[in-house]
């Protein structure tokens, strides 16, 4: 029984690291691929192929898949990109998209930060208020956009400019009238003849309203994970509330702030359905369709008629998102405190 063998270690290797956590070698190696098969097939068709094909289409001038099936050939080149960029409409949608981005992201982030800090400072009704602030998340942005439209809408013909003709200036205008003391005061927010600025203001209000819940959720979650001892230490030192906010809360929250800003910008560049919600498919007030069109809307408008140009626009959008994300990451690398 004492069968000790006189063995030499073949290899002078040190402790076999894998012995503690054995890798179960599946006896049938193809099994994993069977599990992955449905996902892989669908991904190949609807994710991998589109990436390749979008690159291809963007390089074929004025490509149209239906014509391609019919045997048409298309010139290879960068003309789709140059056409898209030189298109006045493209500049317009890019401007609107950027304008909405640079206004809504800072406003909603700041507001969400203040609300989160306030929520974190209270005890009674905290959960109740938290629930209310999360409510807009679980809504249909088209449906609630229609509600916002109703709130800003003027019912009745006001183009005759006689105030009697207005049956209702809408609840928002009514409130403005109440607070300014001028009952006849109204702004044409979204109706025919309204100004671009007032349209944009309505969009900003709606987009911020829509964006708050996600940001509050993330920031409040971050706040709750900040060690309470930092605040106690600040209190002992007699640090003022404002100073505590800027010197402790904001630095501690910087990773979450960076996260909501980045996702906010990505979402902002893809803004589309909130505008459909308020203005309908026409993407603008009556009589000025397409005035508030965005990058995504631009791509969809071209999808049927000129897939090549749509692809080029989609790639430009991807490039912009990538650059903005990288800039954000670069800034946050400098500013995020850990």
């Amino acid at each position, binding site marked *: *029984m*004492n*069968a*000790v*063998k006189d*063995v030499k*270690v*073949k*290899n002078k*290797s*040190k*402790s*076999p*690291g*894998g*012995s*503690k956590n*054995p890798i*179960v*070698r599946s*006896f049938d190696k193809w099994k994993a691929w069977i599990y992955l098969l449905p996902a892989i097939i669908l991904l190949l068709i609807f994710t991998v192929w589109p990436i390749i094909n979008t690159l291809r289409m963007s390089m074929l001038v004025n490509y149209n898949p239906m014509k391609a099936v019919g045997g048409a050939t298309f010139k290879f080149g960068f003309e789709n990109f140059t056409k898209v960029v030189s298109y006045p409409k493209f500049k317009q949608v890019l401007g609107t998209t950027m304008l909405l981005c640079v206004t809504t992201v800072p406003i909603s982030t700041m507001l969400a930060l203040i609300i989160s800090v306030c929520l974190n400072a209270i005890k009674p009704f905290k959960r109740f208020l938290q629930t209310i602030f999360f409510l807009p998340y679980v809504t249909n942005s088209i449906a609630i956009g229609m509600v916002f439209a109703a709130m800003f809408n003027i019912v009745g013909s006001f183009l005759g400019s006689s105030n009697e003709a207005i049956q209702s200036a809408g609840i928002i205008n009514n409130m403005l009238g109440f607070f300014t003391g001028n009952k006849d005061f109204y702004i044409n927010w979204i109706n025919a003849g309204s100004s671009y600025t007032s349209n944009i203001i309505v969009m900003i209000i709606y987009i911020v309203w829509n964006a708050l819940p996600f940001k509050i959720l993330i920031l409040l979650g971050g706040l709750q994970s900040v060690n309470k001892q930092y605040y106690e230490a600040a209190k002992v030192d007699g640090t003022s509330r404002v100073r505590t906010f800027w010197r402790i809360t904001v630095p501690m929250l910087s990773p979450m702030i960076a996260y909501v800003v980045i996702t906010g910008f990505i979402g902002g560049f893809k803004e589309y359905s909130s505008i459909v919600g308020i203005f309908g498919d026409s993407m603008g007030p009556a009589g000025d369709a397409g005035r508030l069109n965005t990058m995504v809307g631009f791509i969809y408008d071209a999808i049927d008629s000129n897939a090549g140009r749509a692809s080029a626009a989609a790639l430009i959008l991807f490039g912009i998102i990538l650059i903005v994300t990288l800039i954000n990451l670069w800034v946050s690398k400098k500013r995020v405190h850990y």
Partner: protein
Amino acid sequence: MKVVLQNLTKIFPSRNKKSKEEVVAVNDFDFEIPDGKLVGLLGPSGCGKSTTLYMISGLQKPTSGRIFFGEDDVTDLPPEKRGIGLVFQNYALYPHMTVKQNILFPLQNLKGADKMTKEDMIKQAYEAAKLVQIDNLMDRKPNELSGGQQQRVAIARALVKMPRVLLLDEPLSNLDARLRLQTREEIRRIQRETKITTVFVTHDQEEAMSISDVIVVMKLGVVQQIGAPQDVYDSPENLFVAKFLGTPPINVFTGRVEAEKLYIGDAAVLDVPGVKDSEKVFVGVRPEGFIINENGPLECRIFGVDVMGRDVSVVSTHEASLNPTVRSIIDADNRPAPGAETVRFLLKPHKVFLFDGETEKRIYF
């Protein structure tokens, strides 16, 4: 059911892509585990003991060599066909199932001729639970149990299928000291009652010595010694085994052999008949191998005396000692006089082991 391991070898491919070096986890393991015995696989971490256990269980395939249960070659059988019960170090209880559901789970997988009726399954589950004395906890969830109770559930789940071989991976390492002692006895009792051939893995030599019928000491994938615990302790075959077994650990000195006499430092401490002259040998002396004697050849400087009741432990230093201190266990009546600075020892020959200075293999005398 005896378990035979034949030239069992396991080589893991290298994880590091740059070096093609393979890792030999178990090297040419040859051993027969007699029927109904409790065998402890013992060694420091990374010695291949767990890999050996997983190969017996079938969760890992040996690179070469065969495994037999009785006369059946099970090398190519999947775990469930081998009739084994395996208890994991962290117990691996299903957290969302009650104790009863956990124990029933293996039975519900049985198919064909082995398929059992619901009543039989429940009966068998209760029998297993009774054996480990948890039949009053059947409706609890694992997180409502103490560590010791979870351990018992894991054992019950391993036993419920009446396995031919029971395998335990570090069964006591997640328990506190008191429970460890208790559970150790428990495992011994269960094994005696069921007479199932049991293999367990541990890095704790005391644990292995106290309950095993046979221990296997391993190092870097190579079996060092196999035998009854007392035999291995009394007659280690190499320096590693001598050092690995025993608390307090063995004292190791460097010495030399000249004219069949063993020298430590300049003192001839022991006659070693039949041993060839050697410039360098390792001398292992068990703590209980020292006798205080005024004329003893080995003189050490006293560092302190630990009183342990019946015995005292004399802590001293010696230049030739490879351990920082020399620890000896002395009958309390013979302890050195208080205030003494040095102590002289005689050595008990059967508690002294000589090892080759190069190969570290035992030199018998």
